[in-house]
């Protein structure tokens, strides 16, 4: 992946303000490449980095990262062919079994994921599945609530990267497990909305193995000149397709060996 930046510093700041405004006001905007058709993935990450810098300056705590667009199902659903990453802050975290407001979201969707908590720092390039497993404190099940700020969830990779990989909210929970007690490749997952099964799969759906998705994330971080610190919370990517939610919906993600994570959505 080329991290070539073509936008001027002024354009990066301008686009960052546009994305930040859309996130704060929960308003859909046209994808950024409509105005900047030559925008690269590197430009997208420059906007995302500026957004992270601003959030941290406002006192948000940067708690970790998420891998996005990691399954064939998701890439097909979104019409892209490379995974992406986004950052996570404490303001995006919601507690297990919480009532989550949708009034500050545009068009939220949920997906279930295997999440990692790191006990050692990791740096790319060349980070491998084994490096990730060795550096993992524990894994746990999680639900990511994604929310593209682009109209109709229509975007290209550069725009979605600038929009922080559609990151919005996340809920970790269930049962924490040590990685050497699990086969992380074959964990089954079922996503239920209002008691009905709306998504199913096994963890191999995420780039063949969730730890491979984390290794990919660390290697993308290296291209951005960043490392993954010890203590980071990392979501490895959706096992199922993302499912829209509305106020009144109740969601449960059930995982083999990892228990379940539940939440409900309100106005």
């Amino acid at each position: 992946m080329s991290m070539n930046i073509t936008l001027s510093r002024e354009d990066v700041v301008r686009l960052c303000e546009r994305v930040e405004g859309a996130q704060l006001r929960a308003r859909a905007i046209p994808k950024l490449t409509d105005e900047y058709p030559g925008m690269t993935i590197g430009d997208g990450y420059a906007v995302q980095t500026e957004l992270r810098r601003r959030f941290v300056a406002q006192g948000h705590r940067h708690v970790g990262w998420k891998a996005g667009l990691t399954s064939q199902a998701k890439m097909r659903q979104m019409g892209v062919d490379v995974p992406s990453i986004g950052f996570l802050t404490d303001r995006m975290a919601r507690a297990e079994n919480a009532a989550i407001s949708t009034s500050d979201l545009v068009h939220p969707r949920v997906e279930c994921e295997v999440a990692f908590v790191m006990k050692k720092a990791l740096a790319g390039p060349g980070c491998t599945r084994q490096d990730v497993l060795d550096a993992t404190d524990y894994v746990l099940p999680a639900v990511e609530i994604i929310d593209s700020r682009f109209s109709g969830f229509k975007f290209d990779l550069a725009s979605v990267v600038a929009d922080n990989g559609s990151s919005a909210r996340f809920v970790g929970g269930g049962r924490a497990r040590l990685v050497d007690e699990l086969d992380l490749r074959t964990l089954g997952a079922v996503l239920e909305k209002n008691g009905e099964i709306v998504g199913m799969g096994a963890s191999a759906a995420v780039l063949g193995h969730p730890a491979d998705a984390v290794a990919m994330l660390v290697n993308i971080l290296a291209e951005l000149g960043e490392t993954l610190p010890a203590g980071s919370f990392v979501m490895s990517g959706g096992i199922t397709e993302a499912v829209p939610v509305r106020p009144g919906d109740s969601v449960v993600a059930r995982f083999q060996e990892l228990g379940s994570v539940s939440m409900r959505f309100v106005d």
Partner: protein
Amino acid sequence: MDESRIRQLGDELFDAWRARRTVAPLVEREPDIALEDAYRIQSRYIERRLAAGETIVGKKIGVTSKPVQDFLGVFQPDFGQLTSGMVHEEGEAIDLGTLIQPKAEAELAFVLKEDLKGPGVTAMDVIRATDYVVPCFEIVDSRITDWKIRIQDTVADNASCGVFVLGASRGDPRRLDITLAGMVLEKNGELHSTGVGAAVQGSPANAVAWLANTLGELGIPFKAGEVILSGSQSTLVPVADGDELVCTVGGLGSCRVKFSGRSAA
């Protein structure tokens, strides 16, 4: 439908199976064919296979996922009989020349240690009566031209059963979460798709309970030692000469199958 017509259609399917050729959809020719008629045709077809020297070794459950039920416009699964001629050993290549238009499905198979007699059988009874579960491949095949099936066609055609392969790893459903166990399907070393036990009627044990109750109503025995293919947890995978498939059930193990030759259609 009168008995002579039932026998005629059952014989036609038997002849098609033996000659590796297809027949026109039965529903096109018998628009009023009822599901009960279809099961009677299936019985005739199986009688012919038993008369030719095979034995009953188990049952298969089909049409267990919501997308397939929606496609066929039904609200419940169907079933077929497994015979001794359908059994293939893991590791031996399946000769596609013995099949017409095969596709593979990854499933969880049950082997019973006690008879199950419906009605009134629950999923808990199924777990209690199960000796072990194994990952397996069912190679479905249709004697109906171009798979143009309605539910009556597939039921009459023994639930489109072709052949099957059981994996070597046996698991105890009391120690394995059969509902949430992941299913990873690889084709020629690459990830093909993933699934989970819940794709089958919410849990594979629910499908087996449905079968026990349905067989009970029909007075068909469901005996200890029988193999039950509980329903597909994957999409249908087309197979060709040289293909190798592996399915892995989380917490249980794998089943591997190879194919050689060319199918008839």
